[in-house]
């Protein structure tokens, strides 16, 4: 008599499973605590897009894809108007001090604002290209700011991080990958 009928269990089980999935997605957290809104890059293991950007108004030499081969490097897409960029900046400064070459793509920024940002917080970039129109960022498949790419010696994109780099991301993903690539 107390045996629960499958005809009852089945719909309830389906309902609970769907509620769990929708609930998880509602809070934007996927399996392993990864943000579900974060997308894999279409460019993983592909060569960096072909581009050549001028410097931030009369400041350095700019950035071109040819500079991204021959070493393991990070490419960071940032803007002075982007609060999370400010948030991750100290970590970029630390990486630069440790000798990691970091290249910057300054996205849709005003030259003066970008220069003020770097004067205030320090400049971790080996070179910066100014992407005033945002076209080069589209070639990189950028959709959120900041984004950081790990590029290997052959100039291939090996990893893409969307959003500010947190100490946890650095420790569990970026630094192990840099070591693996033999930096």
């Amino acid at each position, binding site marked *: 008599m107390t045996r629960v009928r499958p*005809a009852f269990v*089945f719909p309830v089980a389906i309902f609970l499973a769907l509620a769990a999935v929708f609930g998880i997605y509602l809070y934007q957290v996927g399996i392993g605590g990864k943000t579900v*809104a974060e*997308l*894999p*890059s*279409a*460019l993983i293991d592909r060569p960096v*897009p072909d581009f050549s950007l001028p410097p931030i108004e009369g400041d350095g030499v700019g950035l071109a894809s040819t500079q991204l081969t021959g070493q393991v490097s990070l490419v960071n897409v940032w803007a002075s108007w982007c609060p999370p960029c400010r948030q991750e900046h100290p970590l970029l400064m630390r990486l630069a001090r440790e000798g990691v070459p970091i290249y910057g793509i300054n996205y*849709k920024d005003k030259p003066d604002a970008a220069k003020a940002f770097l004067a205030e917080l320090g400049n971790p970039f080996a070179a910066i290209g100014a992407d005033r*129109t*945002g*076209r080069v960022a*589209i*070639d*990189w*498949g950028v*959709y*959120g700011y900041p984004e950081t790419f790990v590029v290997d010696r052959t100039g291939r994109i090996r990893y893409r991080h969307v959003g500010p780099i947190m100490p946890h991301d650095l420790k569990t993903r970026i630094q192990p990958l840099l070591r693996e690539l033999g930096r």
Partner: protein
Amino acid sequence: MKRVAARLVTMFMLLLSAPALAVEPGEMLADPALEARARAISAELRCLVCQNQSIDDSNADLARDLRLLVRERLKEGDSDQQVVAFVVARYGDFVLLDPPFKATTALLWGGPALVFAAGLVGIAVWFRRRRAEGSEPAPLSADEERRLQALLDGDGSNPRP
């Protein structure tokens, strides 16, 4: 009565009104045929910032840049497929609101059919069980008759064989 009529008319007028467009007049192409193709392509491309809107619907900055890019490619003579391939090469299949059938999307496309099949199996099992329950019970065997008689006689002892 008059107020009801007025409300109905208002509702009807609202039905006729065009939805607010994210596409700004300045973005549109002069050639109406090309512009129509751009609109059709944009409606199939996901805005990666909002993720549940097409770039044709979205006011996001990136959506606008992608709309302009679509139009730029079309003006340069790309076919619709070439334009879509151009965007997919940068943002992956996720950018397509109508994803292609591949190994990685097999569950997405096959899921509804699987659930439907599971439902059919469930219904079949349910019907068979109900028929089994609803049929006439088998007549008592000679042994069961004897036990029943003993119980009805009421001596309390259970004459198990």
